[in-house]
């Protein structure tokens, strides 16, 4: 257990030491999104009855920040360690591949939650937004960031260069988050795009997270939770297999 806790501590210390970049910068950019979108789209139709667009937007933006930062944490930590070579210190140690997996995932979860909480705390001081159910909010934030942390491990191990990782982030993670209903309710889309959005796992994370705020969502939070959990299990299985085989890290 000490080995796992140490790696977790190291991962937390790593992002905390550059907290301006890893926690405060994403908070600021999320708040900028909120200011701009709420200003421009104030007249937008209510997504849910009785929920103003700005208020509808907040949970989506918070969850987007949670997910993107969870992904960024494990992926950037791993690729930096790989490129600078200091991953060797973890690889030389008796840490098991499971301990490595859970330490990186949990560190990603904590970073994601820290950024999300920060954004939320700032927004509540400007907007009137209440949380209907903390357990749902926490559950989706936790499992969503764990999923993105695991995907980040895959990307960090797979990428040989920073630009490959940037490509993964810009061509996979970013479109999936932007097209997941962060800025709109799925019901406002044409049927074809609604159908397509149902294939996007990020949609279920955002929708379920939003349910925790408004007690209203595009689909049942139980279905969303099931789908997100299934994705997490599948991605974790792949990640654990990669770590066990030593793919790209033990030649």
């Amino acid at each position: 257990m000490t080995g796992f806790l140490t790696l977790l501590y190291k991962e937390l210390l790593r992002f905390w030491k550059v907290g301006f970049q890893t926690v405060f910068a994403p908070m600021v950019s999320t708040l900028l999104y909120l200011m701009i979108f709420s200003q421009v789209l104030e007249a937008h139709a209510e997504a849910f009855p009785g929920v103003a667009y700005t208020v509808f937007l907040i949970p989506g933006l918070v969850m987007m920040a949670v997910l993107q930062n969870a992904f960024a944490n494990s992926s950037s930590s791993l690729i930096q360690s790989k490129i600078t070579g200091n991953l060797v210190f973890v690889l030389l140690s008796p840490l098991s591949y499971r301990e490595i997996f859970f330490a990186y995932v949990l560190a990603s979860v904590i970073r994601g939650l820290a950024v999300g909480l920060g954004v939320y705390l700032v927004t509540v001081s400007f907007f009137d937004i209440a949380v209907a159910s903390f357990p749902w909010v926490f559950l989706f934030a936790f499992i969503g960031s764990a999923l993105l942390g695991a995907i980040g491990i895959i990307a960090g191990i797979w990428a040989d260069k920073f630009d490959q990782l940037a490509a993964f982030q810009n061509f996979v993670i970013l479109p999936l988050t932007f097209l997941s209903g962060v800025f709109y309710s799925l019901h406002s889309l044409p049927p074809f795009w609604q159908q397509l959005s149902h294939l996007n796992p990020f949609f279920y994370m955002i929708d379920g997270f939003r349910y925790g705020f408004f007690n209203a969502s595009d689909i049942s939070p139980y279905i969303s939770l099931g789908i997100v959990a299934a994705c997490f299990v599948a991605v974790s299985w792949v990640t654990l297999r990669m770590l066990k085989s030593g793919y790209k890290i033990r030649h």
Partner: protein
Amino acid sequence: MALAIEVKQLHKRFGALHALCGIDLEIEVGEFFALLGPNGAGKTTLINIIAGLTLATSGSVTVMGHDVVSHYRQARRTLGVVPQELVYDPFFTVRETLTIQSGYYGLKSNQAWIEEILHQLDLVSKADVNMRALSGGMKRRVLVAQSLVHKPPVIVLDEPTAGVDVELRQGLWRFIRQLNRDGHTVVLTTHYLDEAEALCNRVAMLKQGHIVALDSIRNLISSVSTCSLRLRLSPDILPSTLQPLISEREDGFYILTLNGYSQMEDVLVALRLAKTRILEMEILQPNLEEVFVTITGSSGIGRTAALAT
């Protein structure tokens, strides 16, 4: 005697490259062992397989009796490795680096030993300095310190003195020799043959993935039958029959290479017949460097190695 490291029929292929071609090696507990060989001989590949950083294509390796693949946790707890590259984590200070490394090995309260290694490696004044701010030599010391945090019985150093100044080299060797005296098994690779000769009791020479020599240094040196004779003569003329033996001339001295001590007699006879007086004579023993060149450079071995691949 117990084996610190046992390598059996180890093969490693990287695509078409056969980097290790059936290595067998036994290193006993308490040995000070050197792996020598030209660049690309497979030294680092072998060390990486022992350390679990590289997976073998076939064959097995144990460290203190623990298989490095099936019982990797026990194997890695008994092994400390100093990597060849100067790697470090730029986020942390020296002390943080060492505390974190201890934790990876499951050690919670290791501060006393960490202070001890900091002291031994002369790192106390740098303990709270960020790794980025250290010179190359200091980073090298931290790498050595990191490999020792869990007090491993077996220590492997991959070219620990590459690019390190003389003072640090000597300090480092003093410390490592002390560790060896305290019972640690030490395995190193080096390009400095004088270091291997001064420190190690046994060496393995690698060439193109084969062990071409494996013996104590004394045996290796005596296995190379040539010796050299350094002569100052009066008159300063070497009889023509001895001219082909000259390997070097340095102000007033002739250095002759002999195929063995028995050839000395022929030299003395030739000198007496030529009525040449010997003013000074010295027999030069071959050193490890010459052994190394003879063994790794001889075409015969090169050919065998090529055939075996």
